[in-house]
């Protein structure tokens, strides 16, 4: 059986946690792309129905607030991994 010294094991753990942090941060890209699509659709909706502008803004605001939270989840996990590794 192959055995590693504690320094090597430590560096493997550190590397793995940093790779994990990087992967976790990728999760924050999704909401940005989704919000962009929603904004494009909202501009089209306002052009078609200008009297519904207030309702569209409200819906978009609440939707963006909720969808943005997944980005914070990923950041929390990433920072935990960066500092605990």
């Amino acid at each position, binding site marked *: 059986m192959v055995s590693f010294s504690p320094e090597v094991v430590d560096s493997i753990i550190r590397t793995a946690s940093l790779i994990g942090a990087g992967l976790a941060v990728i999760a924050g890209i999704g909401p940005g*792309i989704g919000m962009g699509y929603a904004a*494009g659709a909202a*501009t089209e909706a306002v052009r078609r129905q200008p009297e519904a502008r207030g309702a569209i*803004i409200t819906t978009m605001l*609440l939707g963006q607030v*909720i969808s*943005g939270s997944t*980005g914070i989840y990923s950041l929390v996990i990433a*920072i935990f991994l960066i500092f605990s590794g």
Partner: protein
Amino acid sequence: MKYIDEPAKLQQEILKKTYSLALIPLIYSLIRGEFATLLGFIFGLLIATLIFRLRLIQIERALDMQEKKASTFIRNRYFIEYIIYFVVLFVARKNPSVNFLAAAVGLFFVKLTVIGLVMIDIIKGSLEKKLESYR
């Protein structure tokens, strides 16, 4: 939901409810003497409030643009917000006088209030429907 056609008023209403709800953890941490938690929570909550206000301004600006331009604008602004969130969480983790988890909860607090308000609305709506069906 109340003020569905007036986003600015709805935003103020949400912020009022957020701050009145935030008094509970603030007073609790103050009584227990956990100043790091108190500081972290206030830090996160203030940043979340500012970003929430900024988001409404950005949406209003985006709706006057072309479809593609608006899409790119909102996407870029989201990534800037993402960097701000990262800086806030990083500072909270690095600084020993600020509790990291409290800062994260502070960042989430506006979102939790919005989810709570929507849930209350859904429950109210379903109860009203049930009451009407009994009549």
